[in-house]
């Protein structure tokens, strides 16, 4: 009987798996997306605006559904297969989903186009046809839009692009929708192709300007004309202004222009072209097909996004400012450009936006792959709205987006948001919201233009948590008190008072004279630990392959010592007042055990000498031999090219003081395991930037201190009785303790309570997860949704912005 009941139970258990399985993906490397609206009553395409949902009464009612009788659709290119797929975005249960263009063929069938389809263009007014740019086959395919829904296949007609190797990079319709503009980076041209129904005419080519105008220098602009600062705070710490700096020296990657992306300026109806080869922006009149303006911005860029007009300051009521964001083609960073008024001296200037270097780049931690400006619920004609759907502050928060924001897709698979204009500011802050903010956790509020949007409420500010501690090198951990002392004054130095220079603020102790300064600006602070180790190893100097030369007076290795920050006693500045002036130089620590050839030798005397040199115990523990470094070289001309660094050593050892390098050579006849350590100082490493230093390789290949880098606070060694200062932290150590010799105590300070910027991880959505590869962000102003294209896992994602969330995925 038991056996009879067992199997049904097992079957029931097996069949009751509640975890939904994700459907197999139909998309294969999607890249671009465009939209059209379908009239379900007439069974035909219609203007995109017809799919605009009714204005929702609340965030909960914002479902993005068009009026009854209409359905929003998306078109998505498929890079691997050379096709375009269609997906119905809206509808009731079962209706939204990828569309099989030819139901007669098993599996999903899409419209075949050319090789590597990379861009789409569809009319917003009368989307009878879809235009598909294929980079690999260098043509534009035209597809009758309605065929995507017919179920009987969708054919395409290809029109080749002019030139031998077009390799087109971008395409869009002109504002009048009477022509296609195609970017041709190989020749530095744009092509204008007239559109007449399903037919494309002959292309007209425009050579883009290649001369480089000087970038705008904001230092030459009067203070009252500088770009305004839009900022809202509540109980926030002191916030610093980004400094006005000189524009960067222009960088060109090629000789000819390389148009990489194009966007429309809806106010001037011109086309702004990103140049991926020269540090330029090109402004094109699409009617006369001429270049009307060329702006120098110091770097080539490869993607653009333009804001609508927004108010200048928190007090302004009239929108007067516009900003153009671009992705730096050299490193994937984001720059903000003033695009407000061509009559202003600041028009086209790359703006300083951050308080930490690089000042002229948005705080985006990883290279950007895509960007888009989103403006949910925003109307430039009525920009000031009293907390749109706040309902007495109930919904105003970091995750409710009403206004204008920048979305940036980064290589780590996240979409990050930056404030441009938040309509809900006056409802934010428990103490500042006029009673409209009912959430007591919303204590500290900071909302600033071009700064990361903070998604979570902040009830405490940036702090050191826990308090600083000393690890006294196996003797125990000592807490640093508010006066800077510990319970082990003979083992570790005290922390002495310091002055905090902007943009750093006192972080420890909470009250009283500062002992530790760090960045408290909630946007610029970094959650990381600072560790200072007495006579610690310089990072990246450990090796098992050091080779003695010159009878033991030099060591050659594969380490580029100048780049990792090693300095010899005879290479330090002679000026005792300069940073590292008077420093005793770094030392070599031989950390490896005696080699097998010594340990197994029959020469007892030799073995005894070597055991004594290393103070080797029967258990095999050694005390590292310490050798003074006098000179340090990188890439010297007279060593084999497979080696990189050379250390010139003092003959007499530091430890044991009675020995010489000849003794070391005798006991280590094979390759040496060693590392470089600082001497009578602390090696300071930061969690994010590691060990900073001002050391460079000089003209003679000797490592030397670069004064400019030292003055820029690129420092990594802290000394007794002096202040240690970098751009991230400041502290000061007292006198050398009496019992510190031979020990390596470690000071640890952790910056905590750093708010994280608002972001969405698109790699894990619903039942699917995996490594994502974000490639496009497209804002659809009709349904106020942000669409992200993930080539790797999720396909097309539809993000709701009124309360940030992933609403749907199509794959």
């Amino acid at each position: 009987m038991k056996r009879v009941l067992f199997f049904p139970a097992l079957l029931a258990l097996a069949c009751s798996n509640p975890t939904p399985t994700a459907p197999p993906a139909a998309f294969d490397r999607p890249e671009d997306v465009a939209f059209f609206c379908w009239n379900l009553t007439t069974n035909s395409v219609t203007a995109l605006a017809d799919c605009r949902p009714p204005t929702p009464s609340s965030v909960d009612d914002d479902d993005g559904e068009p009026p009854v009788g209409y359905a929003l659709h998306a078109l998505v290119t498929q890079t691997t297969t050379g096709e375009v797929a269609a997906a119905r975005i809206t509808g009731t249960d079962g209706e939204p989903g990828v569309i099989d263009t030819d139901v007669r063929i098993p599996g999903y069938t899409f419209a075949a186009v050319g090789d590597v389809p990379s861009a789409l263009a569809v009319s917003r007014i009368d989307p009878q046809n879809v235009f598909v740019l294929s980079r690999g086959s260098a043509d534009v395919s035209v597809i009758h839009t309605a065929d995507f829904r017919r179920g009987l296949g969708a054919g395409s007609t290809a029109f080749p692009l002019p030139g031998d190797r077009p390799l087109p990079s971008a395409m869009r319709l002109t504002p009048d929708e009477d022509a296609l503009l195609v970017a041709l980076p190989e020749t530095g041209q744009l092509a204008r192709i007239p559109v007449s129904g399903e037919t494309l005419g002959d292309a007209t080519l425009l050579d883009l300007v290649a001369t480089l105008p000087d970038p705008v220098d904001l230092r030459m602009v009067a203070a009252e004309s500088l770009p305004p600062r839009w900022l809202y705070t509540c109980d926030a710490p002191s916030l610093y202004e980004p400094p006005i700096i000189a524009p960067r020296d222009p960088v060109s990657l090629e000789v000819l222009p390389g148009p990489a992306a194009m966007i429309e300026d809806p106010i001037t109806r011109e086309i702004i072209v990103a140049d991926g080869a020269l540090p330029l922006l090109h402004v094109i009149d699409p009617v006369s097909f001429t270049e009307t303006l060329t702006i120098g911005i110091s770097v080539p860029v490869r993607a653009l996004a333009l804001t609508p007009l927004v108010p200048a300051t928190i007090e302004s009521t009239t929108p007067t400012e516009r900003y153009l964001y671009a992705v730096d083609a050299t490193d994937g960073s984001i720059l903000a450009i003033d695009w407000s008024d061509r009559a202003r001296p600041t028009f086209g200037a790359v703006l300083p936006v951050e308080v930490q270097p690089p000042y002229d780049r948005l705080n985006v931690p990883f290279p950007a792959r895509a960007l888009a400006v989103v403006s949910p619920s925003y109307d430039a004609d009525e920009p000031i709205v009293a907390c749109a759907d706040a309902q007495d502050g109930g919904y105003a928060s970091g995750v409710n987006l009403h206004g204008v924001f920048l979305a940036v897709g980064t290589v780590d698979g996240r979409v990050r948001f930056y404030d441009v204009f938040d309509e809900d500011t006056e409802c934010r802050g428990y103490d500042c919201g006029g009673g409209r903010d009912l959430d007591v956790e919303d204590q500290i509020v900071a909302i600033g233009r071009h700064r990361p949007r903070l998604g979570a409420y902040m009830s405490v500010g940036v702090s050191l948590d826990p308090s600083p501690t000393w690890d006294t090198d196996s003797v125990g951990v000592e807490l640093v008190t508010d006066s800077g002392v510990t319970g082990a004054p003979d083992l570790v130095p005290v922390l002495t008072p310091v002055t905090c220079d902007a943009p750093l603020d006192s972080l420890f102790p909470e009250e009283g004279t500062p002992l530790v300064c760090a960045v408290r600006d909630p946007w610029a602070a970094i959650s990381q630990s600072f560790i200072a180790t007495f006579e610690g190893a310089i990072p990246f100097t450990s090796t098992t392959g050091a080779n003695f030369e010159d009878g033991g007076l030099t060591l050659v290795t594969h380490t580029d010592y100048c780049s990792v920050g090693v300095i010899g006693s005879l290479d330090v500045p002679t000026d005792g007042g300069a940073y590292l002036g008077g420093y005793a130089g770094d030392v070599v620590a031989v950390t490896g055990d005696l080699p097998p050839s010594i340990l197994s030798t029959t020469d007892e005397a030799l073995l005894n000498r070597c055991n004594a040199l290393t103070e080797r115990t029967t258990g095999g523990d050694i005390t590292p031999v310490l050798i003074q470094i006098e000179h340090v070289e990188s890439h010297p001309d007279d060593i084999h090219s497979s080696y990189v660094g050379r250390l010139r050593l003092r003959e007499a050892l530091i430890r044991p003081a009675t020995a010489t390098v000849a003794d070391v050579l005798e006991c280590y006849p094979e390759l040496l395991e060693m590392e470089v350590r600082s001497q009578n100082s602390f090696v300071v490493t930061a969690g994010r930037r590691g060990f900073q230093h001002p050391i460079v390789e000089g003209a003679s290949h000797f490592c030397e201190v670069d004064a400019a880098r030292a003055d820029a606070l690129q420092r990594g060694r802290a000394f007794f009785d002096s202040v240690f200062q970098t751009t991230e932290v400041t502290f000061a150590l007292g006198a050398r303790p009496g019992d510190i010799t031979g020990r390596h105590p470690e000071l640890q300070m952790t910056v905590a309570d750093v708010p994280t910027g608002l972001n969405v991880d698109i790699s894990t959505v619903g039942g699917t997860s995996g490594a994502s590869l974000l490639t496009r962000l497209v804002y659809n102003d009709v349904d106020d949704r942000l669409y992200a294209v993930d080539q790797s896992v999720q396909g097309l994602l539809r993000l709701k912005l009124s309360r940030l969330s992933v609403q749907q995925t199509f794959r």
Partner: protein
Amino acid sequence: MPGSGPPTKVRLLMHVRVSLALLASIGAAACNFSQAGLDPTPTTMNFPIAIELFQPDPAAADASHLFVVNSNFDLRFNTGSVQAIDLARVNDLLASECGGGGEDCVLDRLTFIDDNRADMHPVILDEVGLGSHADGLALRPSDQRRLYFPVRSTRDLTSIDFDPASGFTCDQSYRAEVEPGTARWDAADIPRCSDAHRVTRREAVANERELDLTGDPVAVAVVPSLDVGSTEVGDFLLMALRDGRVALFLDDGSGASPELLHIADGFPNNLVTLTMEPGTGVGWLTAVGTNEIARVGIVVDSGTPSRSFVYDGGRLRLGGIDDGQDSRDIQFHPQRPDTAFILSRRPESVIEVDLQRRGLTNMDFGLRAVFEVGRGPSRLVTTVIDGRTFVLASCFDAQRLFIIDAEVGALVAVVGGFSGPFETVIDPHANRLYMVDFSVSVIRVLDISPLASGGVPTLIGTLGNLTPVMSLTGN
């Protein structure tokens, strides 16, 4: 009935004895370890895994021969093999039989070049057997006349000599009975390399260092001694072992097998490939399950070369990528020493990295670009055509070859028509690409010259008999 037949206990014992005897006889038949297995049919490709060109001067002349390593992945035969294909004869057949070649051009009746039978494709210069599951191939850089194979079945390095006039030399002989005078294409076997060529020498240093060469060899690279030292002592060989170790050998050029010198551990587990950075003597290692790219270096003891070491040259991370935890190959930019391309499966892409600029931390690569490729990216190769650098990624699951133009920084072509594209090699002089199609045991030949004008490479021929994967029962 009581009293009829043996007592119950005795009956039970008899049952047990009979059962045991039956089991023993079955077991004896099933576990007959003296069975030799199936000898391979000559000129058969069976799951080719690696290929290389014999092309001592790529700038001056087309490659003359193509080496194909057959892994015998399904263990259908009792040995793997390596074949040397005469490419001039291949070109002649493409011209004569296929009008210059095309996607329908399949040379499937491969035989030896001295086989004059009609309707055959005599392109194979020579063929010898080596252990099954070879996992790579490297050539001696100086003259390309010695080949090195990491072989999983022997867990060691096999070395074979080659002469473009006469073929392979490895003291080879037939295992099976072959009548004297039998044409090699009619023999029921192929000659196999002697055991002396299948293992490396262990001399005093190996014993002193207590070296134990175990684990799965996955990759091999040859490093001329002058690349890492000032004294010519022969060639060093680095062999990556899957479990995160790298072995060092020295081939002193005397003709003997290489000598095992050192094994270093501490590298990431699940190593996949080993690629030498040009001119540095530093090998870069890719691995599954980590976002770190490890480096291995050789330090030469110039006084006693046999005491040279390998060392861990440190790791760099694919930081900032989602999530970078599976790298399958790395290739260096042929024209820019500060650039490398990493083939990643998470995400499935080619990642261009800056070797000099660091990323978020000093341990992270500086990222330049990420190019999407197809599912299951497996191997990477670069080439320069008319001064432009192209990066080609074979994607096994997508069954396609993805081609990136490094100058424009974009995917420019996707070539399909394959079943299991894997390792690839390019003849830059002839603008020919040869690719292992693992799933159907053939070699694909592509003309990549159209890339010079923005076109798409074309399949011009297939070498071998298209053999879909069979079930283990042979049905």
